[in-house]
């Protein structure tokens, strides 16, 4: 079955005898491989369907950044929430949403998560505590803190994973949020997915200081930079941040150093960086190759086992695409529904 439950993930985490590194079991590493590969293949398929005109409008792919969301989801428990920008397909798959429903939404079909009305940038799942999918840069940041506010208000120990980009990190509402989150000790993890570019703007052309996470200092929010291409490093940093938040110490900032391989959206000619720059990251830092090397190099898995996973993922993705393409468009009456309660 395509939809993977986060709980399956937790079971893996509880495996005894860690045999890959102190905080990772073999099974969990295999699971990371599977999830990252699912995101990658899903996104490649989405790109292909866009080219065919099945997906329209804006479509922002997550290829290259897979380790960030997969590593962090491994630290989440039931009840935790997540919210992100328009570059959201990976987040949805990683929190256990059904690839079929996500792909169907990308295609604007009635079987999609938003019944075809939201599209790539605006998708939600109440069931998985996925609060979107936001098209307005940085609008999700105060919303993420608001989810954390509700947790604090209710007195539970849930946390809110609030993802945003290096470009979004310059919006004023981010700093208004930092102040209140710290002042009120809200259990929110601000995950800055620093993929070095905001559309065509390299980070150093938009950002006055090189380390975004330092900006938390002004508000008394601890933070750190993390190798976002290394799923193990992501998980480790995530555990620290989650523990900090659950213990009632207020927000935490994780600046994930990552990279997007594709253009900003499907219609980005990407003249602002060289092909060599992209190629170098793909060859030297690819998050999936990294896990593959750990598995094969450490003899934790055979080539054949990984091939079998590749095949299974390909089937899942093809099934999602077929489901999306064969689903009907929304009924015309849907135009008028859901406007107001």
């Amino acid at each position, binding site marked *: 079955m395509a939809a993977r439950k986060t709980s399956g993930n937790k079971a893996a985490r509880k495996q005894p005898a860690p045999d890959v590194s102190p905080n990772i079991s073999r099974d969990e590493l295999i699971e990371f491989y599977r999830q990252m590969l699912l995101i990658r293949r899903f996104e490649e398929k989405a790109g292909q369907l866009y*080219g*065919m005109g099945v997906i329209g*409008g*804006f479509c922002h792919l997550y290829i290259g950044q897979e380790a960030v969301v997969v590593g962090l989801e491994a630290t989440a428990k039931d009840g935790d929430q997540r919210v992100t920008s328009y570059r959201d397909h990976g987040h949805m798959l990683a929190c256990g949403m059904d690839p079929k429903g996500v792909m169907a939404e990308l295609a604007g079909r009635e079987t999609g998560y938003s019944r075809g009305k939201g*599209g790539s*940038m605006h998708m939600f799942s109440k069931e998985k505590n996925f609060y979107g999918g936001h098209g307005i840069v940085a609008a999700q940041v105060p919303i993420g803190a608001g989810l954390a506010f509700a947790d604090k208000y209710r007195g539970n120990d849930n946390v809110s994973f609030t993802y945003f980009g290096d470009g979004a990190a310059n919006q004023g509402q981010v700093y208004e949020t930092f102040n209140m989150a710290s002042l009120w000790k809200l259990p929110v993890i601000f995950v800055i997915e620093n993929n070095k570019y905001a559309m065509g703007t390299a980070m150093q052309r938009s950002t006055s200081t090189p380390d975004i996470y330092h900006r938390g200092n002004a508000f008394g929010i601890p933070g750190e930079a993390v190798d976002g291409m290394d799923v193990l490093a992501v998980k480790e940093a995530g555990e620290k941040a989650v523990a900090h938040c659950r213990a009632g110490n207020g927000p935490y900032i994780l600046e994930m150093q990552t990279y997007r391989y594709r253009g900003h959206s499907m219609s980005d*000619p990407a003249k602002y960086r060289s092909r060599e720059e992209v190629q170098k990251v793909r060859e030297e830092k690819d998050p999936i190759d990294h896990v593959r090397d750990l598995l094969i190099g450490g003899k934790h898995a055979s080539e054949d086992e990984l091939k079998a996973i590749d095949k299974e993922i390909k089937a899942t993705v093809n099934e999602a695409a077929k489901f999306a393409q064969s689903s009907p*468009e*929304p009924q015309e009456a849907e135009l008028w529904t859901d406007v107001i309660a």
Partner: protein
Amino acid sequence: MATNILMPALSPTMEEGTLAKWLVKEGDSVSSGDIIAEIETDKATMEFEAVDDGVIGRILVPEGTEGVKVNTPIAVLLEEGEEAGSTPDAAPEAAEAPATVPADATPTVPASAAPEATVPPMEEIPAGTSSKTQTVREALRDAMAEEMRASDDVFLMGEEVAQYQGAYKVSQGLLDEFGERRVIDTPITEHGFTGIAVGAAFAGLRPIVEFMTFNFAMQAMDQIINSAAKTRYMSGGQMNCPIVFRGPNGAAARVAAQHSQDYAAWYAHVPGLKVVQPYSAADAKGLLKSAIRDPNPVIFLENEILYGRSFEVPELDDFTVPIGRARIWREGSDVTIVSFGIGMTHALEAAEELAGEGISAEVIDLRSLRPIDYDTVLASVRKTNRCVTVEEGWPVASIGNHLSATIMQQAFDWLDAPVINVTGKDVPMPYAANLEKLALVTTAEVIEAVKSVTYRAGGL
């Protein structure tokens, strides 16, 4: 199994493109992610990546071919070890795509290279003036460039306006000509940079602020309304805010609720602002030049779908169009159709079709929404006795509502039918292709409204 590689759609509005260059040849192995070709769209040259591993079996469309329709097979991809002669069974991907797809990706109105319907004489242009065909995009760029040459106080600021040449390529070439001092890339901080530009305008500079789209100007609304629009009044006339806020407004294609709003009525509501929304390239150029020279804050609403349309633009050293004057595009005697911006495409199409049915429609392009040229509208309604308004925005408190009230008060005795407002539907913009089409204004709705006010069969 061999599969076809299809001509991709590389932007929300692309229908066809040029296969500029192949970066692989027959027999080459490719893996997913390799760049295999360069494809030119209406906006840019894009790299096209392989989505599967395999060997290029045959190249079906040679490089340099223009006008290749989206989804045309352009090459055959073989699996490793497969015979070079293999051909795909039946273009499997293409066959799977539902029938509605190609139309889905089409913008509301097809982009055309040919100039629009014949342009009526403009009062602003001396007889005998020559003209050239230009897109709205080029006309806007020329207007900025001319005004920046004329005054060093004029500068352009916004996201991706400089190095990237504009998210929609409107500022193409301006960085090269005017340098970084005057063509300024900002971080994604709309409220902040709008405030900075307003401050610079208070200090006497003449900023042009580009919003990547007007949807993002909502982040900056307070600075636009509370600071830019009201300060002259609050200072008893001492302060000036000569600033232009410009960018695409309204729906593009399939970009859904947060990126598809028409703000015409919002800004037209605000005293202290001027608001213009051009339709043709000539008006875009002439109005933008006037806006830059205007001592007031001017909201300049463009439209992404219109950027690529071509019109005749007069060749004059200094061509301007006055703010606050409507333009009669087509004279008629049975009904007045009032519109602006992209709504004009539907108004003109409807008028053409109605002419074939013996209904003579007068079509007025408001061009400016604050101030509105009431005189032109009222004179026309007093002549035709009927009026239909057309706009993309939502119906409640629309420009059409306001015109209806004005006509009712000032031309009541001339009206033979209630004024009908044709508008976008009263819902956020849906993503699904079929629903988006239903949400937008259509030419058929304009025709139906005209038939209704003229009491012809087939009307409401």
